[in-house]
């Protein structure tokens, strides 16, 4: 009996004894027996008599069961660059699972796979899967995982790995095997496991999903042994899939919530600051209700689509913090940065930007889970009231508590305050329009003009901006008022997020029939432009308009700062950061990858018609790209 036959019979026997959960023990089988009978790919073996056909094929394998588990979790897609360590899973998804829920999405880089999952999850509120090699694939994927970790976004990652050294094919499979695959990303994933049997896989798969979706959300990793994927299973083997119950998000302690309400109701200038606040479409509604109840200023930092941009209480373009006497922070990634300014000169200095005695209230699930090594937790904020809870889940009781504490007198104060804020908000909007008109006819195209031209073409569509802000102008000029119209940025500021996250988000918007719009930075696209091919191949409608400033401009400014500091060549600051000589022709890049593209556009007058043509293509269900040579910022 060869090893596969042995395992198959073991599984069947165990099923009879201990149904429904059957331990299919990959590692306790007799190595000696297996080693002596496993066919070896060699000239001798090739020329020998045909082996037992039963030992060469199987109707059902471990990876089929794994696909059953993935289907039970409701994973819509698997993003993957193909790899032999998960060939069993790959084949089971496309054949056994009929390539539907999950459907395999062909990616050209593992960083793209994970970033697509990152963008998708922020639109749809649930993760999709990623397959990757446990070694070289994960190494590619690592930065994108870190972005998702910093951004508190669930991505469900499965890594192929061949643990059993005696089973490895000579050559590449050894180079692609690792003792502890997840170790490389353990500092910036929430949980990982290496299941040793199929029942273990089922439990860990469900557990991983549950952990990933419990605030604070984060990526999780399952290392899936190649041998276990390819195990033959008896046709009647029954292995249970545990029931999934995603925990409800934790609400703030009732006493602390009442105290927060007391401070807010008593405040003369309360300011609400929201960052990664909105988890679900209901969040915006809650925040609007809280703000309107208090007639309080709201600053949306843009980590999610938290608050309508043209709501009169939206003071994101005004200077509300300096006047605040109570600041409520909702899922802030950096509360310290909200109330302090930082001066990046030779002598680094900081100063508080709030008035003395300002009370700070924090509601964040970030207080519930933190790790040490990577420092994305930012500087320690001295808050007066820290509520360790999910902010979205805590808003309804906070709204109720505020209403309970409101008096007629306070309500009249609130109304007067609201009128002033509405005036300030309206004035800020008018200022934005005026500022946008400067350099209107300039070439390269101003980022304000870029944003305004895009807005004119999309505003009558059911649109969603999935990446980029055109130097912040989209958020200043466009009317964002739907929960799905914005998903925030990369989280970890790891460049290369934009293009694949946009494609992933567009994939999520596709089934809703929305026009996904991407303001694509040039430097970002050059990390892994192959994701454009993925969009073309899978007919993912996405309008990408390039903010092409022909440089890694953020870094260029940092180097310029060093040049100035040392006064030894301020005219050479661009060396090493510019993307010129030759300039990159992004339209040709996109066309070569099967995407409709125009550009480079230099004259702003050509922009509107080009975007209109691209919108028409996208509305047909395909991606399109317009390359626009822009001002730097």
């Amino acid at each position, binding site marked *: 009996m060869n090893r596969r036959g042995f395992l198959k019979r073991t599984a069947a026997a165990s099923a009879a004894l201990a149904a429904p959960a059957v331990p299919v023990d990959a590692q306790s089988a007799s190595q000696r027996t297996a080693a002596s009978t496993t066919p070896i790919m060699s000239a001798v073996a090739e020329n020998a008599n045909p082996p037992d056909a039963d030992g060469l094929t199987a109707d059902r394998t471990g990876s089929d069961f794994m696909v059953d588990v993935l289907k039970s979790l409701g994973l819509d897609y698997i993003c993957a660059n193909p790899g032999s360590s998960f060939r069993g899973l790959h084949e089971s998804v496309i054949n056994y699972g009929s390539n539907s829920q999950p459907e395999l999405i062909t990616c050209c880089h593992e960083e793209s796979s994970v970033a697509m999952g990152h963008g998708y999850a922020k639109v749809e509120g649930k993760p999709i899967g990623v397959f990757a090699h446990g070694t070289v694939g994960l190494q590619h994927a690592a930065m994108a995982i870190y972005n998702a970790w910093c951004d508190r976004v669930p991505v469900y990652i499965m890594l192929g790995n061949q643990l059993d050294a005696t089973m490895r094919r000579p050559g590449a499979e050894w180079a692609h095997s690792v003792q502890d695959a997840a170790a490389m990303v353990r500092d910036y994933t929430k949980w990982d496991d290496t299941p040793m049997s199929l029942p273990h896989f089922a439990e860990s798969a469900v557990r991983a999903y549950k952990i990933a979706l419990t605030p604070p959300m984060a990526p999780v990793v399952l290392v899936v042994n190649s041998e276990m994927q390819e195990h033959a299973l008896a046709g009647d083997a029954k292995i249970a899939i545990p029931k999934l119950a995603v925990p409800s998000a934790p609400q703030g302690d009732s006493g602390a919530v009442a105290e927060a309400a007391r401070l807010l109701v008593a405040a003369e200038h309360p300011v609400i600051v929201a960052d990664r606040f909105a988890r679900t479409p209901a969040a915006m509604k809650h925040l609007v209700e809280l703000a309107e109840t208090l007639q309080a200023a709201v600053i949306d930092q843009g980590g999610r689509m938290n608050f309508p941009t043209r709501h009169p209480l939206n003071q994101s373009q005004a200077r509300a913090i300096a006047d605040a006497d109570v600041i409520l922070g909702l899922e802030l990634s950096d509360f310290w940065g909200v109330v302090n300014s930082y001066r990046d000169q030779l002598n680094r200095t900081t100063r508080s930007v709030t008035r003395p005695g300002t009370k700070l209230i924090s509601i964040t699930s970030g207080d519930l889970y933190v790790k040490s090594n990577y420092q994305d937790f930012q500087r320690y904020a001295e808050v007066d009231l820290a509520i360790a809870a999910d902010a979205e889940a805590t808003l309804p009781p906070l709204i109720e508590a505020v209403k309970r504490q409101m008096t007629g007198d306070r309500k009249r104060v609130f109304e007067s305050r609201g009128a002033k804020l509405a005036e300030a908000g*309206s004035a800020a909007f008018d200022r934005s329009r005026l500022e946008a008109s400067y350099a209107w006819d300039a070439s390269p195209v101003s980022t304000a003009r870029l944003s305004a031209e895009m807005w004119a073409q999309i505003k009558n569509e059911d649109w969603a901006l999935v990446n980029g802000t055109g130097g912040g102008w989209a958020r200043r000029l466009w009317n964002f008022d739907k929960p799905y119209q914005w998903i925030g940025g990369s989280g970890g500021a790891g460049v290369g997020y934009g293009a694949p996250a946009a494609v992933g988000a567009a994939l999520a918007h596709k089934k809703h029939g929305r026009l996904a719009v991407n303001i694509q930075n040039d430097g970002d696209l050059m990390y892994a432009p192959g994701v454009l091919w993925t969009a073309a191949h899978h007919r993912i409608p996405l309008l990408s308009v390039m903010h092409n400033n022909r440089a890694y401009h953020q870094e260029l400014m940092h180097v310029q700062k060093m040049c100035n500091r040392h006064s030894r060549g301020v005219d050479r600051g661009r060396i090493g950061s510019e993307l010129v000589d030759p300039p990159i022709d992004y339209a040709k890049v996109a066309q070569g990858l099967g995407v409709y593209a125009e550009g480079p556009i230099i004259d702003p007058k050509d922009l509107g018609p080009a975007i209109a043509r691209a919108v028409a293509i996208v509305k047909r269900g395909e991606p399109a790209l317009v390359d626009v040579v822009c001002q730097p910022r």
Partner: protein
Amino acid sequence: MRYLLILAAAVLLQTSATPAGDADNGKTLFVKVGCYQCHNYEGHGGAAGARIAPNPPPFRGFVSYVRSPKGDMPPYREKTLSEQDLADIYAYLRSRPRPPAAVPLLTSDPVPVRNPAAASSADVSGKPLIDNERVTVWDVTAADPNGPRVEGDSVWVSVSRPGEVVVKSKGARADIAALGGRAIAIDLKNASKPPLENKSGYPNAFPRPGVRKVLENERIIVWDYSWTPNQPTPMHFHDKDVVVVYLADGALKSTTPDGQSTTNEFSVGTTRFNLRDRVHTEVLAKGSGRAVITELK
């Protein structure tokens, strides 16, 4: 007169304190030494730097700031940027064109900053746009997992795909994604009203020239109509209550036979319930005009 003299003296002082500069050389320097990186090529500012053109601060203050900036801006010493270089850059900044007097793309967007009451209804899920004895109307997107709670026969007017309308019966929901992602759902209540007898001397509102009848059943007639600039509709009588879903951004001027006019602005998705027993004519006052009008029988 005294103020004029002071102003003239101030202008003279500033002019005399500003050395002559070569704007062309200033343009070259502005790029060479990296000013454009934060302030953009036209000095119009952006996310990383303030707007400094075409009206930079007075020259002495300008020089002082460049040498010793208060914020994050990198300092420029004499060694790397002379006073004359700064004068040239200053001349370049002052030579930049002022923005156009009016930019239609920026000013024609009619969506104003809303008042709080409006913000709490149409733009977030959970509350109907209209709820009266005849209809409950919801603004629905495919992203809304729960709503709306349609109870009766309903009309679903696509906002994303102008002209598409679906009718559903007895609490059934339309597929919003199939309607392009956003629709106005009109939930019909059981309050039928026969059409009013038209004694106005004017024709009924519908049909009218250029209108398309989308569908009709025992409870409703749905029309798709576009207003043409400078072409008023015929004066007409509304014999039925209507729900109007606008599919464009603009404004309509409505005038009654006695000459009284009102102008109503609308944007894509704006929905209004208009009572019957009205006589008026409409003309497009701004933007473009298209709507799907549901007459309630």
